[in-house]
């Protein structure tokens, strides 16, 4: 029996949640905090979103949506077009292809793997931006960015898990 229209619409909206949450994280990074020293260092929140959903619901945040998120990040942040798109695409691809390894593993393993992926992403975007701008950029703010991202990972993963429980438990 086909489910009723309302049930289908409800499912459809619930399926939009992963992408919506990732977009929200992206917009959050653009909000001016007006905190001294914080302005030039923003945690890579969209990266965490893409990583989380690639492991737990790769069907709802597929590669092309990761690409789109990255493209939007490039447009908003003013990095050369395509840099974040490529980085997020590769993160999604790597995490999704290794998801069997993650499922059922402890939180520490996921954190450790995220650390590797985040380091790779930062390194790759540094390399690409330096190549495209034609000048090597100072890597110091990137270290802070990395530390901040790693520090925020547990909190964000917890809230993403709560979101998944609330909206996507049985759809």
């Amino acid at each position, binding site marked *: 029996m086909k489910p009723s229209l309302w049930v289908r619409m409800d499912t459809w909206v619930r399926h939009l949640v992963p992408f919506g949450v990732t977009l929200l994280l992206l917009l959050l990074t653009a*909000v001016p*905090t007006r*905190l001294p*020293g914080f302005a030039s260092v923003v945690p890579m929140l969209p990266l965490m979103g893409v990583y989380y959903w690639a492991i737990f619901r790769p069907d709802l945040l597929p*590669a092309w949506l990761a*690409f789109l998120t990255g493209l939007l990040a490039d447009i*908003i942040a*003013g990095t050369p*077009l395509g840099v974040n*798109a490529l980085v997020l695409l590769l993160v999604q691809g790597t995490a999704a292809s290794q998801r069997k390894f993650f499922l059922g593993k402890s939180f520490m393993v996921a954190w450790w793997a995220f650390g590797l992926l985040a380091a790779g992403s930062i390194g790759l975007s540094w390399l690409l931006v330096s190549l495209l701008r034609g000048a090597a950029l100072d890597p110091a703010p990137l270290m802070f960015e990395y530390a901040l991202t790693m520090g925020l990972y547990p909190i964000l993963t917890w809230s993403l898990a709560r979101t998944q429980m609330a909206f996507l438990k049985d759809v």
Partner: protein
Amino acid sequence: MKQSGALGRLATLRLLAQRFAFVSLIVAAVALMILGKADVLLVERTRTVVADALAPILDVMSRPASAIAEVVDNVRELANLRAENARLKAENQRLLHWQTVARRLETENAILHDHLNVVSDPDPAFISARVIGDLGTAFGHSMLLNAGARHGVRKGQAVLSGEALVGYIAEVGERSSRLLLLTDINAHIPVVVESTRTRAILTGDPGRRPRLNYVAGNPSISIGDRVVTSASGAAFPPGLPIGVVAATADGIFRIEPFVQRHQLEFVAIVDFGLGGIMPFDRPPERPRRRGGEN
């Protein structure tokens, strides 16, 4: 048996399609990077369209953020009340002295202007805008403002906070615009060291203070010298304060800007009637809002 073989083939096909899609997306990303290098204008137009679409959302989101920042500021101010008071008293005394000097100089200046028939600078028109997005990453420093072409913002206009220059408009959308801060690697501003009249170009240096490039002549610049805009290139009116020389190590002069990035909430986009720093976007002739003849 036959059916499961067909299913298997279908699964392989699907996997192949997925692989193909993934690889095409990678190719697309690389193509975008090359396109961004080749067609700057197209990329810029895309950016402004998306920024325009996001501006209302960011506007709403930035309001609670600024409320929180205010509370944090208040707490910090309370903690430093005593020290701040002492500092302000000392500064007030110093400023009162400067006020007398300034008053005297102002009258003298007015009299001399009269005597010499000096043409005075036109009064600039300005637009106040709110910072709605801090688009900073480790790679670049820019901000999204909630005023765009429909409010009269044009590319290349100077952006001031108080009296000090903080950057210029790099991209203009219909209702939003992008402010390129002078700390961005792409920002180049003709400046002059006030006391020695040494000309140079101020360039951003991500992660560090902006530096002086192409210092003209024999530089006798010392720490504490004020750096202001110069009239070179007719980009900005001369004399807008930018910052002070903070370090002179290894022949590289680094500037401490008067305005720090996190302090920016409202900025003034000022139209001095000049071409701005990007001459390919000539200003259309339009009546000035106030002051001036043209």
